[in-house]
């Protein structure tokens, strides 16, 4: 079923896009990540212009995060105060990211920049995940064999973060820290949202646990809360300046994504979390390798056309 995308100005196979959204949704339901970091590169592989892939992916994440966020909200697992600080940082970061995005678009380097950032990012994250998953699997085997004890919990306080001024209490997070730390974290993730079209949950969640030391019960809910607002702000920024939000594309991805996520959640319950993380690490590294290959292999045509910007 061919469908003409009004902003991308191209005809796509709607079924393929829905399945793509579904596949990423399945993985995101299975691994508990947003999946934006897979949606954008896959759309680029399909032939959607990178700028439109990034902006529309951000819009899709807003929609796919809402049901999860509401579920955590009902259970009282959203730290609104922490969330608002993160959102404030995120909106500032998204604004900065948008300026960078626009400049890169003007000098004709946006496509290659998005690709390079993705290669670096997915490469680092994938390697870290792979290392952690392998270590966890080995440790588990040793514990099962009675050779070692479970590892001690990670330290909750990072010295330079505790040293920041203007400490305040975040009750649900169980924290007494300076709001500058989450503001900065939100800002960094916001830049990535605008440039890469990702929610950033897979950076936000570990950073909240290991850097800020938030209590685990509030982490995921607060992260989703933050993602909704920052991706919404990103959509608005892209819609007003680069005009690259394709709502039809976003909704197609969303339909597939929500359905895929439910199936993913069910599949995840039958599998071991360490093995899941190992699988995700392999997928992430495979996407990074694919993008890197695309950057280094000589393109079929050296000449690319750009309309008036």
């Amino acid at each position, binding site marked *: 079923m*061919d*469908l*003409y995308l*009004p*902003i991308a*100005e*191209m*005809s796509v196979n709607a079924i393929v896009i829905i399945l793509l959204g579904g596949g990423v949704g399945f993985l995101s339901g299975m691994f508990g990540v947003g999946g934006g970091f897979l949606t954008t590169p896959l759309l680029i592989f399909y032939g959607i212009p990178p700028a439109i892939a990034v902006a529309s992916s951000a*819009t*899709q994440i*807003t*929609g*796919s*995060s*809402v*049901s999860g966020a*509401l579920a955590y909200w009902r259970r009282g697992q959203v730290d609104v105060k922490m969330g608002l600080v993160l959102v404030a940082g995120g909106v500032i970061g998204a604004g900065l990211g948008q300026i960078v995005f626009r400049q890169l678009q003007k000098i*004709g*380097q946006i496509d*290659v920049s998005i690709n*390079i950032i993705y290669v670096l990012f997915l490469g680092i994250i994938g390697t870290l995940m792979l290392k952690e998953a392998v270590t966890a699997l080995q440790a588990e085997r040793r514990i099962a064999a009675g050779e070692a004890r479970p590892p001690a919990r990670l330290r909750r306080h990072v010295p330079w973060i505790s040293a920041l001024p203007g400490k305040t209490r975040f009750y649900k997070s169980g924290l007494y820290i300076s709001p500058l730390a989450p503001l900065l974290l939100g800002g960094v993730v916001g830049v990535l949202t605008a440039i890469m079209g990702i929610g950033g949950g897979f950076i936000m969640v570990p950073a909240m646990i290991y850097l800020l030391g938030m209590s685990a019960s509030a982490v995921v809910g607060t992260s989703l809360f933050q993602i*909704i607002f920052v991706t*919404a702000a990103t*959509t*608005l*920024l*892209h*819609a*007003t*300046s680069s*005009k690259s*939000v394709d*709502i*039809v594309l*976003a*909704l197609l991805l*969303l*339909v597939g994504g*929500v*359905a895929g996520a*439910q199936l993913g959640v069910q599949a995840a319950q039958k599998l071991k979390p360490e093995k899941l993380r190992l699988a995700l690490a392999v997928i992430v590294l495979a996407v990074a390798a694919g993008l890197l290959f695309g*950057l*280094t*292999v*000589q*393109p079929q*045509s*050296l*000449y*690319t*056309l*750009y*309309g*008036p*910007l």
Partner: protein
Amino acid sequence: MRALFALLLWLLLGAAAPTSLISALSQSRIDINTTFKGADLLVFGAIQYPAGAVPDAPPDIAIVVRGPAEPVTVRRKARVAGIWLNTDRIRFESVPGFYAVASTRPIADLADDRTTAIYEIGIRNLQLSPASGASEGETRAFEAGLIAAKRKARLFVEDARAVTVTGGVLYRARIAIPAIVPVGDYAAEIHLIRKGRVIASSSVPIGIGKSGFERWIYVMAQEHGLAYGIAAVLAALLAGLVASLVMRRH
């Protein structure tokens, strides 16, 4: 008496009038809607000879369909530290968004270079107006790159066998309009060529535009960016909620 006079006048004028072309299109407007996959434009018509005298030699026809011209920046990739990056660029001021030539014979056989250049018949005769600055060789390389990219996207097309002429009078050609065609005001120019000279021309306008939902979305996004953004966010939120509710039921 009056009718007789009119008939006389018609005969006189008809005899003195040069050869002319009567042209029409299968549609005067192409709508890009949700299911748009490209279109086939039929250009057809008749050659009107003075006093209806059809010459023995078959006539040559060249049909040019062109879209609105716009500036295009061509960027060339080069390997920098192992990665292919856009490096040099040249701006071309007037590149037609779509350009198709259909003819009865290869363009080189129709007329001399000067004539085809004057009427811009043939892709290599397009005046793309490169911005000055680069050397001639560079400009030519970029122009070739531009043309190759446009040809690959089926936005620049040349077909030397596409026009059929019946009985030396009726002509027709099918022009394929691809799905990624830019919107705007198009024109089909029809040239009648004999012995290397263009002896009659006619032009028919055609509009290509987004219609219905596609048009509405596009106009909203271009002219009311903020409202479009807000609508996109609300639509995503609503769709996310509805989809998750539906899924949970099952």
